[in-house]
């Protein structure tokens, strides 16, 4: 963008926060408005399935710091209802219209619904927000029966581990052969063994056939004919991009917001997208647009989207990160780099390190409690899959009348 003095950031998660921070770092001195549907400032969402569930921390302990003065207007507890890219306006509840010169879309994802599950029951929850964690804690406190989590991905596994850490019985129900099966059979076998050692129940290769709700407990009748009794049920079966408010906006919605390699949304000149909702081609791998639902990607894409918004579409640089992710399960640190989902095959790279291979090329790696080795393999993957050569350093903001950048003020 080249002129104007209001940037709106829709989404007050980590991607929105880091975009705001980067805009100020680069000297943007106009008005900055952050719209967030949750009632609190950005917080460390990975803690929802860990510290906030176990009670080791309160939401306020998990508030994210900013490393520069944001001087932002916060519209918290407010959900953007519609975007009009021709009028450059974000619509808010009650008919309010918020004009912008630049827009960052960072509304993230919402947890996927499991058809047939009684979501109106307070004992059935998803796990996305601090409020979700509080609600699960209330359900746990009301009964000493086991907890059940449906879904064998990272959130499901983290929740199961948190339950065992609290001394609660837990059963993980999943349709895959093993938890974390998408990380390959080695990781899946290790995580299965880890859950067994910690006496977390696993009901894999199965799904819920019937929900039996009583006053005290839930009964889950599974397709393998097992009956599981639960005090509360957490649904952790993935998420879908939060794009409802963008319908009819002119942006291309197809599993998230379709973006150019620079995170500029296709179909608009002044809209960039960051975090889980962005579907963009990472030219380090290929030109296929994908979403990356990792916390570190939200940090990095928030900053890159801010840089590109200030640089303008013509000067914007492709966003080509090497994706990194982590999880802690019990005492084990699980880390991934690259895009393991692209792989056709896996290979053992080192003790505890699995490589993911596509067409003879390493595209990712996963470490089972091997952080030191993963530093080596991150550098190695960075070398083998170099980011395509790019161009100028991030532009500094040169406002409507080329005002001096705020960052240079004494």
């Amino acid at each position, binding site marked *: 963008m080249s002129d104007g003095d209001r940037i709106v950031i829709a989404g007050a998660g980590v991607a929105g926060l880091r975009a705001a921070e980067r805009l100020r770092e680069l000297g943007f001195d106009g008005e900055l408005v952050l719209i967030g549907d949750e009632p609190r400032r950005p917080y460390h969402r990975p803690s929802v399935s860990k510290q906030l569930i176990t009670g080791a921390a309160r939401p306020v302990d998990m508030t994210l710091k900013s490393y*520069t003065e944001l001087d932002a207007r916060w519209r918290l507890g407010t959900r953007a209802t519609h975007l009009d890219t021709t009028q450059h306006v974000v619509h808010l509840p009650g008919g309010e219209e918020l004009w912008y010169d630049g827009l960052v879309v960072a509304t993230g994802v919402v947890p996927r619904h499991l058809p047939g599950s009684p979501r109106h029951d307070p004992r059935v929850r998803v796990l996305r927000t601090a409020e979700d964690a509080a609600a699960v804690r209330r359900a746990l406190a009301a009964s000493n029966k086991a907890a059940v989590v449906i879904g064998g991905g990272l959130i499901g596994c983290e929740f199961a581990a948190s339950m065992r850490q609290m001394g609660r019985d837990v059963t993980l129900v999943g349709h895959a052969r093993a938890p974390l099966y998408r990380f390959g059979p080695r990781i899946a076998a290790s995580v299965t063994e880890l859950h067994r050692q910690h006496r977390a129940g696993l009901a894999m290769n199965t799904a819920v056939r019937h929900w039996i709700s009583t006053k005290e407990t839930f009964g889950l009748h599974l397709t393998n004919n097992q009956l599981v009794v639960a005090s509360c049920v957490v649904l952790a079966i993935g998420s879908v991009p939060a794009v409802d408010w963008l319908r009819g906006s002119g942006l291309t919605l197809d599993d998230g917001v379709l973006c150019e390699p620079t995170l500029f949304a296709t179909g608009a000149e002044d809209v960039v997208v960051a975090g889980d909702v962005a579907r963009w081609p990472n030219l380090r791998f290929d030109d296929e647009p994908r979403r990356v639902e990792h916390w570190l990607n939200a940090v990095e894409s928030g900053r890159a989207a801010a840089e590109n918004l200030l640089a303008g579409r013509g000067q914007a640089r492709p966003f080509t990160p090497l994706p990194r992710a982590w999880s*802690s399960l019990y005492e084990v*640190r699980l880390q991934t780099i690259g895009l393991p989902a692209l792989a056709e095959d896996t290979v053992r790279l080192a003790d505890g390190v699995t490589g993911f291979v596509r067409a003879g090329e390493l595209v990712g790696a996963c470490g089972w409690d091997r*952080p030191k080795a993963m*530093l080596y393999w991150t550098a190695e993957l960075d070398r083998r899959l170099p980011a395509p050569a790019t161009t100028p350093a991030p532009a500094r903001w040169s406002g409507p009348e080329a005002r001096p950048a705020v960052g240079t003020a004494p």
Partner: protein
Amino acid sequence: MTLHRIRGGPRLSVDNDRCERFGTCEWEAPGLFELGRDGRLRYRRRVSDEDAERAAAAARCCPMQAIVVRGVPG
């Protein structure tokens, strides 16, 4: 004279109760942080103004949000 000069430049600290030694900080700011072969994290407690930006990057990216940077210039 700004406050950070009086205090002697940016300072780093790591909350040991939070840190799980993923080593993300070393990737963001090699030389400021180092995950040793023994699994311990070593880091510089005082950093130069030039390194403050890398220190902030490490703090931003820390999976456990365990890094505190104080006295960043600007």
